[in-house]
């Protein structure tokens, strides 16, 4: 029997036979996984907008907050100790969202990037990481939540068509902290993100929300790992994906591991996929491993289905033509998560991109 202890990662150059890599098209990973990419120091991430009190963005040597079993993360760490650090001082309530923007450097070389986001005790903030443009990028993002802190981390993958992005987004969550993540992946050629949660103190909670929309030829993988190592933590995972077009391929893996010490754990994970056309493929694998019976709840659900003809009929019976009805349903499907972003401008922009992709896929 396998264990989910380490998200089934194996720290060697992946061959594609490993559980953690079996869905990923390694040939399209631009050499980020095997060391054949040509790294270039680009420092592509920058703090955008007015400076806010208690918020600092610096560049320099960082040390890993948590060891990793992921071969890409370890390649990045072996390559450089330099990285970007966003710190939010303890007891700071940051009113406006903190924007981190990406200036992409193209696909002739690759970037191996390290990022740390540190939230001090009882601090509260929203960080929005906006990824656009074309790049080959391997990234090790560590998010460290001190006791009692509260962070909303929004990661927007609005990449250009050539981008290959392979990243781990690892949240290390201490006592009574609240972590909310929203991942939106609607652009790129290959996007592989490993959102990870390590609970290191009791009483904390993590809410991982995500949406992805893959069209012809795109590969988007989201591989969760929620590690309940301590008592009385709560986790919720809700990912929704839609696919349209030939060889659109998405992968969602939800690994939740409840260790023997994690009494009082409450966890639920859900993945729903909507197949809008033939020729697309959605893989969805929830995994739950439980080593203690003393828990509040543990559940998972996964559904993959086609467009609901009854919804279409209902909308069309009110005079709405088919293309508009489909758009309305798809928007509604994504809106549940996108509306959580809480920023009208971004929400409109994402919906417009989704409309756009949907229209292209419909042709």
């Amino acid at each position: 029997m396998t264990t989910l202890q380490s998200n089934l990662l194996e720290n060697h150059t992946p061959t594609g036979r490993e559980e953690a890599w079996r869905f990923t098209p390694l040939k399209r990973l631009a050499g980020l996984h095997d060391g054949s990419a040509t790294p270039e120091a680009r420092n592509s991430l920058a703090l955008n907008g007015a400076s806010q009190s208690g918020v600092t963005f610096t560049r320099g040597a960082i040390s890993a907050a948590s060891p990793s079993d992921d071969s890409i993360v370890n390649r990045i760490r072996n390559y450089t100790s330099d990285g970007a650090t966003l710190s939010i001082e303890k007891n700071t309530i940051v009113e406006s969202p903190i924007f981190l923007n990406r200036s992409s450097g193209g696909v002739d070389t690759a970037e191996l990037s390290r990022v740390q986001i540190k939230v001090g005790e009882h601090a509260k903030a929203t960080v929005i990481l906006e990824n656009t443009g074309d790049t080959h990028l391997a990234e090790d993002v560590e998010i460290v939540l001190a006791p009692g802190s509260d962070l909303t981390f929004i990661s927007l993958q609005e990449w250009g068509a050539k981008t290959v992005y392979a990243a781990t987004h690892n949240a290390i969550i201490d006592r009574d902290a609240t972590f909310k993540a929203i991942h939106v992946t609607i652009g790129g050629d290959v996007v592989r993100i490993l959102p990870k949660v390590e609970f290191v103190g009791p009483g904390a909670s993590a809410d991982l929300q995500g949406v992805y929309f893959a069209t012809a030829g795109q590969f988007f993988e989201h591989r969760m790992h929620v590690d309940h190592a301590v008592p009385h933590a709560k986790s919720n995972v809700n990912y929704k994906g839609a696919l349209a077009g030939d060889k659109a391929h998405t992968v969602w893996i939800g690994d939740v591991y409840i260790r023997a010490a994690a009494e009082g754990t409450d966890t639920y994970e859900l993945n729903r996929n909507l197949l809008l056309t033939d020729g697309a493929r959605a893989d969805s694998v929830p995994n739950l491993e439980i080593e203690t019976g003393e828990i509040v709840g543990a559940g998972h659900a996964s559904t993959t289905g086609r467009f609901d003809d009854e919804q279409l009929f209902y909308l069309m019976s009110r005079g709405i033509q088919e293309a508009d009805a489909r758009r309305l349903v798809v928007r509604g499907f994504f809106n549940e998560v996108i509306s959580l972003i809480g920023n009208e401008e971004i929400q409109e922009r994402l919906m417009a991109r989704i409309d756009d992709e949907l229209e292209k896929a419909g042709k």
Partner: protein
Amino acid sequence: MSTLEIRGLKVTVDTEQGVKEILKGVDLTIKSGETHAIMGPNGSGKSTLAYSIAGHPKYTITGGTVTLDGADVLDMSVDERAKAGLFLAMQYPVEVPGVSVSNFLRTAATALRGEAPKLREWVGEVKSAMEGLKMDPSFAQRNVNEGFSGGEKKRHEIMQLELLKPKFAILDETDSGLDVDALRIVSEGVVRAKEANNLGVLLITHYTRILRYIQPDFVHVFAAGKVVEQGGPELAEKLEANGYAEYVNA
């Protein structure tokens, strides 16, 4: 004055046991301003008639015609039927997650009217329709039919009827699942729509109680896929007293 004319309508549906004929030649003519009640036992094909006219893909038309002022309804797509002036208030309205009532109504009104209604006037229209049906204003922000009670779903259907102003409305068991107060409120909405737009109504029901609020001009008894008896409001009284036994066993 418009006319909805159904002639010799035959409809089949694919079941696990094979193709089954549900409607076996239905004849019915409805004119603007008229209310026709279709009454009949469970499984007689009443809902099939409603959904076939609206164009649900589950049903296959194997014979007959449906015309609206001479235009071939059966040749139209589902949205074209609505644009021609047909409206179906469903017995089981469908949930559309993530789409607000407000957005849905405005999208439908825009499609039917050919242009987006002016915002200020539209807000007033919606407000007045909701007040008429005693719906809380917060209703507009909820997702279409998601988590609605049975009564809320029916009010929402009739609210659309009032806002979208069709020529003919088919009400498929709109009275089912409603308590006395909700039945009255919903019925008043139908009557308002009738009076405002000279609406023709095809009212499908098992029970006579809704007919106390919405007076039918004609009553048709439906059994085994066709109309087996027709009359005036007095026929409903007879059904109330005797039930459908004589038609089912006939």
